[in-house]
């Protein structure tokens, strides 16, 4: 299916925004103004954007601890996200969640999740709501290879099949779950999740996570299936994350040169640019303009976040309940 020029530009812009956002955080974090744990998504942009370009605000996604890319792909605004990561009152969660719990329910982003495997069962639940509503909305669980052995994930997949729910399980195999590679931890070798999902009784396919177009197309099939009452599907796409599990991870489990090589040869932005220019869909100038625009946006986001106020102490006990 051909994407329009607008869609291509948006896809590029979203991927570029994620890359800039994450790469910039990597520079800012050592300066000490960003509290807590941060997990960066650089290298995986094509998966988040390839999936979300098939979705509207009414569709829902669940996420992982590495959720900034999912947020941006789903259309969450960058500046409130940055403020949230800096723990400021102007953050999209009022400073209450931080990097690991960034959410924007108005955009159907059901929150980054600090519990591995926490997302897919929630997505199954959203799918129940969507099924009942009958408007063709779908839920996509963006999960990592780390969750591939999690009991609740299997429960969610089984339940999705049993109830024929409009949910898609997208497993992003980014090469490592924390410090252990799936080659070791996920029994059964390559594309195990695809075969496990098939074992649960749903259609499943796999592909190259650095190829936006492959992600987009295969997700489109799954989403259409779900929208039309065809039930759940699973997808397994591979790539390599450019940064560590968390910022500060010495990454001793990676061979020298692995990351440099990935940035050179497994860069979905480079791949995208090459493809669209070769096919004369877009020009370099178009994408250069986007690069400049994004750079400015990220600069502003960081500046404004640093200048933003912290939440008041009273906020500690606010929003624990709606009313108590």
């Amino acid at each position: 299916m051909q994407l329009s020029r607008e869609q291509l530009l948006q896809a590029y812009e979203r991927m570029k925004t994620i890359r800039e956002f994450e790469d910039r955080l990597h520079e800012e974090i050592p300066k000490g103004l960003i509290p807590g744990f941060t997990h960066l998504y650089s290298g995986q942009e094509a998966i988040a954007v390839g999936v979300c370009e098939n979705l509207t605000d009414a569709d829902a996604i669940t996420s992982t601890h590495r959720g900034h890319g999912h947020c941006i792909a789903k259309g969450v605004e960058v500046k409130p996200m940055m403020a949230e990561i800096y723990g400021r009152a102007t953050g999209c969660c009022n400073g209450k969640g931080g990097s690991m719990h960034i959410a924007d329910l108005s955009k159907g982003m059901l929150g980054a999740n600090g519990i591995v495997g926490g997302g897919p069962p929630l997505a199954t639940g959203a799918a129940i709501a969507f099924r009942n509503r009958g408007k063709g909305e779908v839920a996509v669980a963006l999960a990592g290879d780390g969750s591939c052995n999690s009991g609740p994930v299997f429960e969610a997949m089984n339940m999705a099949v049993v109830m024929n729910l409009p949910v898609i399980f997208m497993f992003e195999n980014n090469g490592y779950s924390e410090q252990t590679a799936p080659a070791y931890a996920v029994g059964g070798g390559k594309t195990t999740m695809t075969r496990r999902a098939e074992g649960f009784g749903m259609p499943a396919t796999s592909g190259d996570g650095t190829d936006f177009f492959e992600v987009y197309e295969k997700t489109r099939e799954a989403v259409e299936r779900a929208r039309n009452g065809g039930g759940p599907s699973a997808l397994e796409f591979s790539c390599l994350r450019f940064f560590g599990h968390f910022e500060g991870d010495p990454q001793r489990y990676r061979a020298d040169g692995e990351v440099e090589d990935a940035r050179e040869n497994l860069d979905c932005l480079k791949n995208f640019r090459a493809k669209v220019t070769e096919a004369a869909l877009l020009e370099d100038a178009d994408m250069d303009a986007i690069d400049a625009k994004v750079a400015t946006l990220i600069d502003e986001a960081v500046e404004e976040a640093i200048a933003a106020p912290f939440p008041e102490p009273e906020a500690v006990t606010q929003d624990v309940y709606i009313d108590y």
Partner: protein
Amino acid sequence: MPVMTYREAVTEALTIEMNRDETVVIMGEDVAGGAGGSSGVRDNQSGIWGTYPQFHAKYGENRFIDTPISEAAIVAAAAGAALTGLRPIAEIMFADFMGYCLDQIQNQAAKFRYMFGGTAETPMVVRTAYGAGLSAAAQHSQCMYSQITHIPGIKVAVPSKPADAKGLMLTAIRDNDPVIFFEHKALMAATGEVPEGDEGIPFGEAAMYREGDDCTVVAIGRMVHFAETAIDSLAGEGITCDLVDPRTTSPLDEETILESVEHTGRLVVVDESNPRCSVASDIAGIVASKAFSALKAPIEIITSAHSPVPFSPVLEQAYLPSVDEITAAIRKTQD
């Protein structure tokens, strides 16, 4: 006023809300029963406690959902559905199974509103059966409400009487925060007057089932009945008691408890939980710190033993609080 059993009262509340609001859905194991069975009969179990008679026929597959045995997925699905517009009631058959779904209660449902800066609502109910006394043994007899009460972001109801079961269930379903609803399995057949209509009982408001001047007894769940027996048996000795049933442990009606203690000056807390970090020790701590000068005697705390629940009935009897223990404790406060 109509008289009905505790279980019927719960059913009535569920029915009222299922009829009133089509976003209310029920999900759990064998809530209908018979899914995939060779007889083809659904609604044959109606839930392990029989609280959903004919619900499958009445409400259909989409709103009344038999699930596989997947507590984690059940509770998480309820949470995800709550975030996206439904009002799910998930059943966890035995409170003991909370271990399977504690992450989904504690780290997901309890925290969405807070983590997401007040932008999320998670209007879900988890109803579960708790308690010992039927020789269901160690893994099917625990209370669990003490651990759950501890979690900020969760509300906890523990009704003792049919009227409270109905009223609190109505409120739980209508409440937009996550509620865990604990029903004692040995109370399912208990009868009592239950008001007609659809008025819910607010959370955080205790009931006082006896009034007196000499001692305050705070009791949770089934222990309310034990306490009533104990208190009534002391009438001949001229000892009268306030019996406070908090009805919800989170939020807790501290005010009624403290005012009662200020009136009587003495406190006995009766809780079927194990002793450490129980709701009983929590209430005792609250009273000791906020009404110390009102106390004329040390607080008496009565809980089950610090052990798993034993199987043999003689042992189970010894494990649980007894009416005699409660009576003795009340008398002791009068010394």
